[in-house]
């Protein structure tokens, strides 16, 4: 069983976000990139399947700041191979990311045929669509998203995937493999790996590089950002300032006023 995990770096929104001059994109100089949260769950799910079924897990990521850390972390956690796709312009749209990944899967030796391609359900910057259905479309494979549980049948030809619906309802799906699944959450919280193990991986293991081969226009229909701005939260909430005691007193007064105390 061969499992690919598609990974993408995304801005850490805990940090302040600045808009670049021109007003249509984030200023990447001020952004700290972290692994897109659900991609980390996709990796975890792949590693859990490896433990259960003896698969090989390859982490495939697009070049971006801090991506080596994410890939070495994947290796330290138990991935067998890490591949980095280089050559995309900074701030590439999701449709290009998906194209570059689909091409790499088809062209880089050892990646196909894959039995299972896992990636995060959605990233916070997926403005023009989601990677999982895009890759499924490009490779003509089945797709299911918002997956929170995954098991394989004995033959390894069918997966049983649980998808989340509103209100805590879940759907159990049979998915013929190979398939592309968008993972929302792994069955267990992503494992923690000590920094020392990541450092060791950096010394003993390597990241393979593959060039992205894209048509000049990225080959995708364009969604064009004409303006980007920060969502100003100040407009709505009335902010209560002061030390914890005075803020608590103010809030108690408000709750009393609403008949809540």
């Amino acid at each position, binding site marked *: 069983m061969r499992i690919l995990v598609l990974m993408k770096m995304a801005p850490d929104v805990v940090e302040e976000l600045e808009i670049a001059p021109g007003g249509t994109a984030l200023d990447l100089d001020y952004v700290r990139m972290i692994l897109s949260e659900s991609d980390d769950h996709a990796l975890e799910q792949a590693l859990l399947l490896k433990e259960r079924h003896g698969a090989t897990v390859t982490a495939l990521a697009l070049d971006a700041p801090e991506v080596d850390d994410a890939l070495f972390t994947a290796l330290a956690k138990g991935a067998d191979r890490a591949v980095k796709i280089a050559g995309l312009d900074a701030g590439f749209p999701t449709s290009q990311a998906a194209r570059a990944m689909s091409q790499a899967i088809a062209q880089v030796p050892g990646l196909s045929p894959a039995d299972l391609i896992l990636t995060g359900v959605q990233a*916070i910057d997926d403005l023009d669509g989601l990677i999982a259905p895009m890759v499924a479309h490009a490779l003509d494979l089945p797709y299911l998203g*918002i997956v929170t549980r995954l098991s394989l049948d004995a033959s390894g030809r069918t997966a049983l995937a649980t998808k989340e619906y509103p209100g805590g309802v879940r759907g159990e799906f049979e*998915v013929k493999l190979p398939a592309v699944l968008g993972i929302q959450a792994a069955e267990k919280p992503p494992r923690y790996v000590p920094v020392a193990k990541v450092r060791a991986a950096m010394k003993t293991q390597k990241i393979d590089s593959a060039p992205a081969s894209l048509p000049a226009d990225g080959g995708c229909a364009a969604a064009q950002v*004409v303006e980007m701005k920060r969502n100003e939260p100040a407009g709505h909430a*009335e902010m209560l300032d002061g030390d914890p005691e005075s803020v608590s007193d103010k809030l108690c007064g408000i709750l009393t006023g609403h008949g809540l105390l």
Partner: protein
Amino acid sequence: MTGSICVFAEQWRGSISEATYEALALGREVADALGVQLTAILTGSNARELAQTLGAADLVVYVDHPLLAETLPQPTAEALAQVLQDRRPRAFIVPLTNVSLGVGTLLALRLGTAGINFCKDVRIAGGRLQAVCVMYGGKIEATVEAAGEPVVLGLWPGARPAEKGRSSRSPVVEEATVSLRDSPVLLRRYVEAEAGDVDLTKQDVLVAVGRGIQSKDNLGLAEDLAKSLGGAVAGSRPVIDQGWLPLSRQVGKSGLSVKPKLYVALGISGAPEHVEGMKDSALIVAVNSDPRAPIFNVAHYGIVADVLETIPVLTAAIEAKRAVARHA
């Protein structure tokens, strides 16, 4: 239908979703402003009956096919693409829900047009459609235009009140046929939500914790605050995924939608998927150390502070107030 504003009428387990009526309400505004028709496409098995509930649209095209009984992304997108092949609307709006996630992306690829995700509104500027999008977990608003039509817009729930998208009018209803290949993805069964120890939807007061609570050990602080307010503790997705609270306590898109009299959000950033489940609460108070947290966009009162410092002081103040009230 050509040149119209078109909405994907999403059905799930026999009913049209609230998000569909919200999309129809927005679609109606845009269609009227442009002077074009509002149309809807409904896919399902025995879809015809549901078409009558879509009177906000001028025309409803429904597709009946056993493979469309559930909204499986690939057959659904393929069916929509076939219907739209020779009747291209200007815009096609797909509700961004767990039911339809992926349909918009696949449809745009199949039509070779642009998909725009995360829309919360649509504007018309000089006759052109512009999508107003909320991205980066709610921190950034982008105005986006697309070359080529139809532009496929994924619409966040909450864009308009669902009420405005309901109508007692009878729309014109047409049937369309499609040809689909077998689906390699099939639903085996639904698993109903586990009943938790408390029903969040019946609580007057909810104290909700997010990743800002930092560890399971700190949940006791929220429990104490909830107790002092006579409510229950709820959580955002990461708190549930970490196993700190059961799924029955999750608020949001994949969890429950709640409308308590008071919703206290502690260390919750206010991502659209969370806000969707709590935005209609009567009074919302948020505590977050980040003054730019999007939760302050929906909260009525906001406190920029460390939750770990604030919660015990607030709990003590409430207890003191209650003690005074008891002795008065």
